[in-house]
């Protein structure tokens, strides 16, 4: 009986062992034996614009080593379309069906739902394809993409920031999107396209052209401040603004002059960067080397510290949305905020005051010798070339940016999610004419900055000369690491919390930045 049992066990072990061994060997042989497939296709697209017909021809040679990690895509666009208002109706090149993983940070329900609707539409247009959507908190995107790339499994498309471009392009994982830009022609705002241009190629796509604004309760201003409402007519100096904040801060009435988001490093970085930018200075020198301990940076962080003295107690633990809650409930008089805050105002402020006559905007103050300076929406779409279906990811982006689809996403937050495609913006202004009329001054304020080239992506100050050409400084190769390191936020909070003088904080930041750059191999950018 026992012998029989043992014999049966041995047989079972042998069978299982053989099966597992066979599977492993078979998989290995299959992996090694499958030859690389060479796909070559020529795509001819006819683009019709009023009065012009342009034929764009592109040859796409794609070598795919199935089962292996290598994908080489060579794209040769022969024609760049430059005629305005292109109406493209041609079918897209044949794309292999598959699944796209798509990360975005739009937590606002209507815009998040618009993505879902568009994903369904995309799946209908591309049978066999689907878009798997994940919504991430802004502060989590950096770490999440870092871990995804380290694991070699990035999403096809993700919402990121401009500073990702150089980092990921240099790593060879950011997909070149020249053909997409050629396809759009000059229907894309030049400023937006220019911001995504790096080392001769277009990489990411700017999501929207919104600008960060200084929102002030006009009713409080008229009640407490002995200066006329400046609106968009006059840019206040820093000292005038601090005086106004003194007058607006009324702890006895439970009102504070200003609210800043102190919980999240991301927002501290932005506010600090805007303060430094307004001085006309930068934390990079003319050669792109890191330069924190210069007078302009010190001036900027000192000002940031002064601003925080007008914030409610505990501001350092409060988040961005908390600042808007304070504004709409009348607990603070001013915030730095994005135009999407209009939705928040309309939702939570009493209906009779939810308008631009109460929630006004003014130009951001600057010191003597300073300049107009604000932040342009720092959200960018990135396609990762080492994802599973990068071409399909690019196709999704192309589909999403078609005017009808783009407007479908923008229309619920019209003054913030303003399309970078001119035709889509025109369409949006028609669709939401009422909204644009109601909040016209908010739109005008953004226009003011855009017209003057004064709205830049976070961490950017100016163009600098690199290798004989001009390049935006936020595309310096170390900016991603610098931003993620927390050095800037620490510098600002050292001053705001009274831990260090502005000079010491700047010196410490410079020391840490130099150590960081050396450890990351950016020795050329160390002074």
């Amino acid at each position, binding site marked *: 009986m026992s012998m029989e049992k043992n014999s049966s066990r041995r047989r079972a072990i042998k069978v299982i062992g053989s099966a597992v061994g066979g599977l492993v060997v078979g998989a290995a042989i299959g992996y090694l034996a499958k030859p690389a497939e060479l796909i070559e296709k020529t795509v001819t697209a006819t683009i019709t614009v009023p009065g012009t017909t342009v034929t764009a021809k592109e040859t796409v040679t794609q070598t795919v080593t199935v089962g292996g990690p290598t994908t080489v895509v060579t794209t040769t666009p022969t024609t760049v379309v430059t005629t305005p208002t292109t109406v493209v109706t041609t079918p897209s090149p044949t794309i292999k069906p598959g699944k796209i993983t798509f990360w975005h940070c739009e937590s606002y329900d209507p815009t998040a739902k618009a993505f879902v609707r568009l994903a369904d539409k995309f799946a209908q247009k591309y049978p066999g394809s689907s878009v798997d959507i994940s919504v991430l908190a802004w502060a989590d995107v950096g*770490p999440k993409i870092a871990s995804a790339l380290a694991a070699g499994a990035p999403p096809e498309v993700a919402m990121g920031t401009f500073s990702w471009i150089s980092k990921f392009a240099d790593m060879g994982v950011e997909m070149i999107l020249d053909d997409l830009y050629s396809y759009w022609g000059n229907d894309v705002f030049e400023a937006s396209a220019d911001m995504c241009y790096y080392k001769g190629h277009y990489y990411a796509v700017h999501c929207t052209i919104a600008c960060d604004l200084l929102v002030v309760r006009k009713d409080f201003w008229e009640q407490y401040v002995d200066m006329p409402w400046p609106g968009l007519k006059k840019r206040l100096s820093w000292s005038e603004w601090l005086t106004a904040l003194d007058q607006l801060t009324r702890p006895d009435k439970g009102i*504070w002059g200003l609210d800043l988001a102190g*919980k999240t490093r991301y927002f501290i970085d932005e506010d600090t960067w805007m303060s430094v930018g307004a001085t006309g200075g930068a934390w990079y020198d003319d050669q792109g080397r890191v330069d924190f301990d210069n007078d302009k940076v010190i001036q900027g962080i000192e000002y940031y510290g002064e601003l925080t003295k007008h914030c409610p107690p505990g*501001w350092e*633990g409060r988040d961005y949305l908390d600042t808007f*809650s304070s504004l709409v409930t009348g607990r603070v008089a001013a915030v730095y905020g994005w135009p999407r805050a209009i939705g928040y105002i309309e939702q939570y402020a009493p209906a009779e005051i939810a308008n631009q006559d109460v929630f006004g905007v003014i130009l951001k103050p600057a010191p003597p010798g300073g300049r107009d300076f604000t932040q342009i929406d720092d959200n960018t779409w990135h396609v990762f070339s080492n994802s599973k279906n990068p071409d399909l990811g690019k196709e999704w982006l192309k589909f999403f940016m078609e005017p009808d689809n783009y407007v479908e996403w923008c229309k619920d937050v019209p003054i913030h999610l303003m399309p970078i495609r001119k035709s889509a913006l025109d369409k949006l202004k028609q669709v939401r004419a009422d909204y644009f009329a109601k909040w016209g001054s908010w739109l005008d304020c953004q226009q003011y900055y855009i017209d003057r080239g004064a709205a830049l992506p976070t961490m950017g100050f100016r163009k600098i000369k690199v290798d004989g050409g001009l390049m935006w400084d936020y595309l310096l190769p170390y900016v991603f690491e610098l931003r993620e*390191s927390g050095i800037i936020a620490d510098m600002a*909070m050292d001053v705001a919390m009274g831990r260090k003088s502005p000079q010491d904080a700047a010196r410490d930041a410079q020391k840490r930045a130099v150590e960081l750059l050396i450890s*990351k191999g950016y020795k050329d950018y160390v002074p």
Partner: protein
Amino acid sequence: MKRYGTLQQKESRFGFFLALPSILFFLGIIVFPVAFAAYLSLNYADTFHLELSFVGLDNYLKALFNDQFFAQFFYQGLVYGVGSVILQLGLGIGIALVLNEEFKGRSLVRGLSLLPYVIPFVIGILVFRWLLEPVYGFVNYLIIFIGGKPVAWLGKDYIMFTLILISVWIFTPFVTVSVLARLQTIDQSLYDSAKVDGAGKLMRFRHVTLPALREVIFVVVILRTLWMFTKFDVPYLLAATGGAGKYIANLPVYAFETTFGTLNAGYGAAICMILIFILAIVVTVSQKIYEVLTK
């Protein structure tokens, strides 16, 4: 027969074969990550590329002797861990003793007492953030309503207190349930004998209840200490790493920030290894103390 050895050897081989999945699982899920972290800690490793360059003990030396944040975050982790464990223990034992008594609605109260531990941490923390919001939060509203001054619960001066408060609220039920389970197994005859011997309530607690709880308290203290020292989610969700977050960040948060913020996986791994080393010492010393006390 010779080919396959004795029956005992065959049984052992078969037993080993059956245990193999568990062994592989243990090696893959526990041993490999720790060993890899130990290996990483001896290298400079960029989080993106994981291209390693050997630096020996540099990461450890930097953390221990040349890092302005390491000591601060270790200290903050200590305050958080010790503070919250002591409070959890005191409250947890107290609540367990109450819940061990007979009273009307005891089952309902027992169920409710578990609630904080059942609610997902993230929800609990967000609710607390809302309640304690300095400007428009409900708690400050009540304080102002009764004539008091609002408190900046999320500001740098109170954020550690708030963190401990929330942690005590979330984790005390674990202590309660563990202690209550032991209380229910204490032989009633011990209390009866003590009563016959003239012991009052306090004496019965001291000489019957406490000795019976010794083992469970030891286990609970060890577990809660380990878990509070390695706690990442609660401090991170409460204050992230910007302004106030710096005042409650502990070593796990710092390791995360170093790995995914500064993108230095090697240094992040070194911080984790130091943490493991510290906790190993804590457990060993506690074990020894327990053995001495129970001899």
